[in-house]
């Protein structure tokens, strides 16, 4: 199994043997790993083959060795981040980890769709965090495996070249559907909002939320040509009358709150991809983990870090993103599908 939990000693041996990994763990475990061909991010939450796990002793790692003929690992600041698509190999993908609430996280959230070659190369990844008990005391981290450098300000990227017989695709599981209630539009793009246009009428957003008694577990959803992009509620500041989100709301986008779900966990499991055996990487939102009460519960064979934001070309919330690997068909076989 290419994605699973490891004891630190076992993983360290594999790193020293030259294997290539994408890693998630508590910060103090990441610090002790040997230098090597890996990138890492801080999170003690995982989906394993045993179900949801919270661990400060184990490390989650995906072994990419068999699917790469070459790779390049770099720390990325806001400037380098703009090249994430152009730096992705023609037949390959980039795995990107950004520390939660860092300048690179915020910059990516706001600007990724404007980067050169946006969507023309697969970019998948996640936002690192920390144990929720450590909120306010620790900062999220990423690690550049080849040097061991740890950063809370930069991201880390692994640009992976696939063997020529392989190709990859990024998918997203978003169990939420737009409701049929009010249309919401925001006068400004950002991670927080004071004002909102409700069916065209400007209102105080916090007052609107209170009057509607909206369920904060249900995100706002913008529909981008069928891609449902969530903005999940993070917090409210009653003094400043500000509502904060885990992902930005965009001026010009039209939002509706998600429909209420009968059962969060059941709906999530029902929406998992059919061909999960092809999944190499998967990243599942901490909000799904908490609201679905996934600790101890399996979601099929899906395994991966539980994250503080997901990257599937753009920053996503309350989703699971995954990278699937396919073998190329023999040349000519797809021609019959075209007209």
């Amino acid at each position, binding site marked *: 199994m290419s994605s699973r939990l490891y004891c630190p000693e076992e993983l360290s041996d594999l790193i020293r043997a030259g294997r290539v990994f994408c890693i998630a763990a508590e910060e103090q475990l990441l610090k002790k790993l040997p230098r090597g061909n890996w990138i890492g991010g801080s999170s003690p939450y995982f989906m394993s083959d045993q179900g949801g796990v919270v661990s400060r002793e184990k490390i989650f790692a995906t072994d990419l060795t068999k699917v790469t003929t070459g790779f390049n690992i770099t720390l990325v600041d806001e400037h380098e981040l703009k090249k994430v698509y152009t730096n992705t190999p023609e037949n390959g993908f980039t795995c990107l980890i950004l520390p939660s609430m860092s300048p690179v996280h915020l910059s990516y959230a706001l600007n990724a769709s404007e980067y050169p070659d946006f969507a023309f190369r697969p970019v998948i990844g996640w936002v690192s965090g920390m144990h929720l008990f450590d909120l306010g005391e620790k900062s999220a981290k990423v690690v550049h495996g080849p040097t061991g450098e740890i950063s809370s300000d930069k991201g880390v990227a692994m640009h992976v070249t696939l063997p020529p017989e392989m*190709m990859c695709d990024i998918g997203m599981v978003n169990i939420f559907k737009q409701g049929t209630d009010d249309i919401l539009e925001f006068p400004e793009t950002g991670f927080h909002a004071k004002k909102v246009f409700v069916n065209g009428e400007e209102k105080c957003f916090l007052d609107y939320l209170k009057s509607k008694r909206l369920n904060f577990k249900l995100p706002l959803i913008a529909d981008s*040509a069928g891609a449902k992009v969530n903005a999940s509620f993070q917090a409210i500041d009653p003094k400043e009358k500000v509502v904060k989100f885990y992902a930005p709301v965009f001026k010009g986008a039209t939002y509706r709150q998600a429909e209420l779900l009968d059962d969060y966990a059941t709906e999530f499991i029902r929406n998992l991809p059919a061909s999960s055996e092809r999944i190499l990487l998967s990243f599942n939102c901490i909000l799904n983990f908490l609201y679905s009460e996934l600790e101890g519960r399996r979601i099929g064979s899906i395994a991966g870090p539980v994250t503080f934001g997901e990257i*599937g070309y753009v920053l996503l919330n309350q989703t699971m993103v995954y990278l699937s690997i*396919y073998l190329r068909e023999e040349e000519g076989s*797809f021609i019959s599908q075209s007209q």
Partner: protein
Amino acid sequence: MNETDSVHPVWKKLIKKEFSISLSFLAGKLLLGKLQVQYGTEPKNLVHLARKMHDLYYLNKDLPSVKKDIELINRER
């Protein structure tokens, strides 16, 4: 699907929302959403926007999700 397909009117129709379609390819959905917004503010760039959408699909034509989308798009030709 071939490279010269980019001039087929169906790609412009897609940008202009002249038909609705449920795409499977995530990159396609996200790029289409962006290009449709751009068309709204810069309609004179339609040819360029349509070309871009075609090019994304041509580049990824071997993927199952793309093949599925191409089949749906071909029905609108």
